[in-house]
């Protein structure tokens, strides 16, 4: 924070924050200084010349937006001459601008014109030259249109794209009076524009306008705008939903609030279409004669309760299980796990986290104590070094990536470890491209060099690692055989690059690690993360501000669902169930008998499927998950689900999974809910209700409570979501001080144990969350993969995500805009392999192995290694998880989505 200094404005003394932008400070202090090119989120431009003021001691007229507040400044913000100059410049602007009302966007120029009485052409003295100039427009983008006639050349869009989003798609074409905005080489739709819409949000006139619902929006008569949290990835962007007639018509980023300060990605801004989509479930469905038929709520609830009851009575309580949801709120998930634990009476509750970061979380909890990111999102910008491994951050966490790109622009050294080219490589100092499944070796190789060169932090090792130097020597011994030559042999990464990356990381002042699915979704997932943490610990890159390890989370509430206890081993707040004392505490809070709480760990997601396959799980309750897309080895999953006696799916769409259900219960989407979620940086964020659910859709937590009641169990009564949160806060000490009321005007990151606690932006500043308070080294060796290529299956297939779609794309593929960017399954293949197989980009191929077979379009791409393939898993018509294995990482039970042996062949149609 800057200190306040006194300045004199129009003869009166004011106190303004030193070194802040003068225009912003003047406006904050209540002075109505006009200005169209300035925006607090970009660097000052000084283009519109409307913010003119007079500063004592400076010659002539000054522009407030290009100055900073200085002690003792004396200024005049308005007088006749200044107003006249503003008027002149406003007239200039209006003379090159087409007056055409567009009520779908807030037009700052029109507003100013009104203020100066220039809205009526007869009051203007200059001829309008717009027609003579004949500016171009561009309608080729799926998300926006640009009209050069309305553009005032303020550069806000150019800077929004470049400085805020780090994309640099836009520039000013031509020069002088004929200047206008172009994207890429001139056609928006062909440019690298990814549709984030930042330029729309910053455009002060109606020059760049978003296409969807343009005719339906009247910003001057808008019904309401509701602040809430984006339903897509785990960044947790804050946005405003504009609502007309119970329909969302626009989303815009909320400025001034973390984690995104107004930024959004294309999904956050345009992906809301699914909420009001006609395919939404509107009433319960019950399978009758093999077909899902509409039914009433009472009938559906009664059926669910009786069938679960029968299974429990016939096969015992262990025959029941539930999948919670990374998409539902903390409140919904809290009630869900409470239901499993109190009504099913076991701990068989898990969700898709098992499929993404379970190994990361397992390793982190063992080594440093918490299974969550240690830093705040802003640290991605301020770090001197960023080590990104197995994380396609630009596509999967686009807003976190904006911080990264801004850091890169300031000289941050980025190291990318990925077997495949990701867009981040463009910003990186070094890209290490290991063969699939060789991460441990690579990391050990890096550690080898770091130790050899003495880049370790001995004080940290002695003071903050269990067994200090002795533990370190154990690691040193283990990595001694991973010299760069040997590491190169195993991983295929040139020794020179290993040395270079080790030097950058080893000598960085503050380093941040981002680790993604590429690391975690392997049979060696936990080991991968152990070695990563080893590297971080011996260099002391954790336990202080600006350094640490962060696993950006895939879904908006993956973090929260585990935080609130949707885990087979842990109660809310990471309290182990195995401890009797813990059970006693929880039983007291839940008003139940401690003996009724099961102390044995429950089954994890993939284990639940195995158990169903073997007939041990008979009834399954799935809330807001789509395992028929997201689970590995889908044919096996289908068989398992078909073997179940009873499957209940609670969702907003008839998903691939819901189609197999016996009962389908219509729930509510994010925009219809109140509650909270937790972002990747442990920020507890509010979800707020903007529209009513369609048809008879109900709140998830209310459905769960209704089933419990029908099963004659009392698991609590709550007036609203805030009341659920209050109980959750009692159960989970990490959220002990949080309440909905506090979240109205505070930004809180857990741990936040008490109502007066400010939250914790950085973890482990004083101690690690292990019993000893110290971190632990877990030296691990490289292990050969079981899954190998063979003559029969000569390719290794990697899977992942793309920017425009999300997870199983239940939500994202309902958006025309997102589909316009990408709507077809593809597989990336190295050009050399394509050549050998006589394949051309655009041809259709079959990808198959023992587990399944799918088809997709080929794209040749030098970004994958020879012998490796990459496919996104979003497309239901090409479910890549038909091919993946369900062999598990023994520690975290995560499945190895990132490595499957397959073969390909051309499809001749």
């Amino acid at each position, binding site marked *: 924070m800057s200190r306040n200094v006194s300045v004199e404005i129009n003869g009166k003394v004011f106190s303004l924050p030193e070194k802040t932008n003068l225009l912003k400070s003047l406006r904050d202090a209540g002075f109505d200084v006009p200005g169209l090119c300035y925006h607090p989120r970009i660097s*000052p*431009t*000084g*283009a*519109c*010349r*409307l913010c*003119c003021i007079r500063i004592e001691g400076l010659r*002539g*007229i000054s*522009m407030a937006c*290009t100055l900073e507040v200085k002690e003792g400044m004396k200024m005049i913000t308005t007088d006749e001459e200044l107003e006249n*100059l503003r008027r*002149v*410049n406003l007239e*200039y*602007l209006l*003379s*090159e601008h087409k007056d055409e009302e567009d009520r779908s966007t807030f037009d700052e120029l029109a507003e100013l014109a009104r203020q100066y009485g220039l809205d009526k052409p007869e009051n203007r003295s*200059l*001829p309008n*030259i717009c027609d003579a100039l004949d500016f171009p427009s561009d309608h080729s983008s799926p998300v926006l249109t640009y009209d050069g006639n309305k553009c*005032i*050349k303020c*550069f806000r869009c150019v800077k929004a794209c470049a400085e805020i989003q780090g994309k640099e798609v836009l*520039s*000013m074409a*031509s*020069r*002088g*009076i*004929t*200047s206008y905005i172009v994207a890429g080489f001139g056609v928006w739709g062909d440019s690298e524009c990814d549709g984030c819409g930042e330029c729309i949000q910053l455009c002060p006139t109606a020059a760049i306008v978003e296409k969807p619902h343009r005719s339906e929006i009247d910003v001057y008569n808008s019904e309401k705008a509701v602040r809430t949290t984006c339903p897509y990835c785990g960044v947790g962007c804050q946005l405003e939903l504009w609502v007309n007639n119970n329909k969302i018509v626009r989303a815009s980023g909320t400025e001034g609030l973390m984690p995104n300060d107004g930024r959004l990605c294309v999904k956050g801004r345009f992906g809301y279409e699914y909420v009001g989509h006609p395919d939404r479930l509107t009433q319960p469905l019950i399978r009758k004669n093999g077909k899902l038929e509409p039914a009433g709520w009472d009938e559906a609830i009664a059926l669910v309760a009786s069938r679960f009851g029968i299974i429990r009575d016939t096969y015992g309580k262990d025959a029941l299980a539930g999948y919670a949801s990374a998409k539902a709120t903390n409140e919904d998930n809290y009630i869900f796990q409470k239901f499993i634990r109190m009504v099913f009476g076991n701990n068989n509750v898990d969700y898709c986290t098992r499929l993404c970061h379970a190994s990361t979380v397992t390793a982190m909890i063992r080594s440093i104590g918490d299974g969550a990111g240690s830093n705040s999102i802003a640290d991605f910008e301020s770090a001197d070094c960023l080590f990104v491994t197995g994380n396609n951050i630009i596509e999967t966490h686009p807003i976190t990536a904006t911080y990264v790109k801004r850091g890169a622009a300031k000289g941050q050294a980025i190291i990318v470890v990925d077997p495949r080219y990701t867009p981040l490589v463009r910003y990186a100092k070094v890209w290490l491209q290991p063969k699939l499944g060789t991460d441990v070796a690579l990391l050990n190789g890096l550690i080898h060099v770091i130790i050899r060169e003495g880049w370790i932090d001995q004080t940290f090792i002695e003071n903050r690692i269990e067994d200090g130097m002795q533990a370190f020597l154990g690691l040193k011994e283990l990595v001694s055989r991973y010299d760069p030559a040997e590491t190169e042999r195993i991983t295929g990464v040139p020794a020179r690059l290993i040395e270079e990356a080790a030097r950058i990381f080893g000598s960085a002042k503050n380093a941040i690690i981002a680790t993604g699915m590429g690391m975690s979704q392997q049979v060696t997932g936990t080991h991968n993360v152990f070695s990563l943490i080893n590297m971080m610990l011996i260099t002391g890159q954790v336990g202080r501000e600006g350094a640490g390890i962060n696993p950006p989370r895939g879904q908006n509430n993956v973090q929260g669902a585990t935080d609130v206890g949707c885990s087979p081993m842990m109660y809310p707040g990471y309290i182990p169930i195995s401890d009797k004392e813990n059970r006693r505490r929880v039983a007291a809070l839940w008003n139940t008998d401690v003996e009724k709480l099961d102390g044995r760990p429950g089954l994890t997601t993939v284990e639940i499927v195995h158990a169903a396959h073997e007939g041990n799980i008979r009834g399954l309750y799935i809330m807001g998950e789509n395992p028929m897309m997201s689970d590995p080895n889908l044919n096996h999953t289908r068989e398992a689900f078909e073997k179940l006696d009873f499957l209940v799916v609670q969702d907003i769409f008839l998903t691939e999974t819901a189609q197999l259900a016996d009962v389908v219960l219509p729930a509510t989407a994010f925009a219809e809910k109140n509650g909270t979620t937790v972002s990747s940086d442990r920020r507890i964020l509010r979800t707020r209700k903007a529209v009513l659910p369609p048809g008879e859709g109900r709140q998830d937590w209310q459905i769960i409570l209704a089933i419990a009641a029908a099963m004659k169990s009392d698991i609590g009564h709550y007036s609203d979501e805030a009341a659920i949160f209050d109980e959750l806060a009692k159960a989970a000490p990490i959220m002990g001080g949080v309440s909905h009321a506090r979240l109205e005007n505070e930004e809180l990151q857990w741990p936040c144990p008490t109502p007066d606690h400010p939250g914790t932006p950085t973890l482990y500043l004083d101690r690690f969350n292990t019993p000893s308070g110290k971190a632990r080294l877990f030296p691990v060796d490289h292990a050969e993969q079981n899954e190998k290529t063979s003559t029969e299956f000569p390719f290794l297939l990697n899977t992942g995500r793309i920017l425009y779609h999300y997870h199983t794309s239940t939500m994202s593929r309902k958006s025309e805009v997102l589909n316009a960017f990408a709507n077809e399954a593809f597989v990336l293949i190295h050009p050399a392999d394509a050549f050998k197989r006589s394949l051309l980009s655009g041809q259709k191929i079959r990808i198959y192995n023992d587990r399944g077979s799918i088809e997709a379009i080929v794209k040749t791409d030098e970004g994958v290694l020879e012998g490796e393939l990459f496919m996104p898993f979003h497309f239901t018509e090409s479910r890549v998880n038909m091919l993946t294995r369900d062999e598990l990482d023994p520690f975290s039970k995560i499945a190895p989505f990132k490595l499957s042996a397959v073969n390909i062949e051309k499809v001749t149609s």
Partner: protein
Amino acid sequence: MKTPDAKRRILRSGKTLWNLADALKAGSYQAFEKALGKDTQEILEEIFLSGLRGRGGAGFPTGTKTKAVHTSNTHGCSYVVCNADEGEPGTFKDRILMEEDPHLLLEGLLIASLAVRASHAYIYIRGEYGRSIERLQTAIDEARKASWLGEGIRGSSFSLDIEIMRGAGSYLCGEELTLLESLEGKRGYPRIKPPFPAEKGLWGKPTLVNNVETLANLPYIMMHGAAAYRSLGTEASPGTKLVCISGDVKNPGVYEVEMGTPLKDIIHGPGGGSREGDEICFVLLGGAAGTFASVSQLGIPLCYDALRKEGLSLGSGAIMVFGKNASLKDILQNILGFFKHESCGKCVPCRTGTYHLMQSWIGGCTNNQGERKKLLPQLVAEARNIAQTCLCPLGQSPVMPLESAMKNIIELMD
């Protein structure tokens, strides 16, 4: 070159001075060698005391600027940039200097770099100046070979490398802050001032930006001292000035004249006066961003202050002489067209204002002479508005020719 040798500071005698051997014979690098033996403070003081003022157009005291760069250079990194963009219409003196005597400029750059402790200098040169570029590059190569450039020059601890960068034809890129943007590889838009280049210039480091001619004065000052330098010129405008005489005169060309020489002595002396059967009607001083003077004003001495007092400007040293057949109407249209074309478009008043000025004048040109005379004051008012709020000096320029035409020669309007 009509100036007697005793009155020359810059234009040296010699046919092939671009060869290092010949340049050395003419005394090149002696001043720099002398400067190598001095400490920076002495060099700075000498430049300061000489009273040399920038020859790029603005006439800012060179010593003050050099000292400011030296003072800001607290982190041991600064740059010297030679402005050789020479974009002002009617100006071609830098070209002659660079073509005829490139080592003089290199020596000036060496002295300036020594003064501000820069180890890298750039010459940002007008792209069309093919021969200048060629000769400068040869000179740099030769100088480097002879250890007048490079690492540890002549056994001292001082190192300097000079790089030539070609401009791409934008007038605005001659403006120092825009020039720096262009030099950094960015589009030629002006930067917001402050900070000035002396504080934050190229790559954010303190940077000395000087015109070719300005730098070419430094060897003399180093060699002979400030007092000797001041023996020519006036108190406030010491030394000599290169003028570019063009238009309706007998002997157009570049001449070195003593500051303070009356304009008519220049036009009639080296310029040779009007051509047979013609007469001088008015003069444009300093190019498009300059001012019109009437014949009755030609007694004014050529120096910054005397001209300014009359509302005139010395600018880059362009003296365009117009005779009987010149059309003021067309000349104004040409000038306004120039500004409209060269406006970068970044700021509103200049972008749209220069367009409206041009359009109004074209409109006015279809009217009669009387209307045009009445239109001129309106354009002056418009141009004043532009000048008051525009971002960079380009937008402040149109008012100068317009206003001076209105004040000094409106009766010559055709």
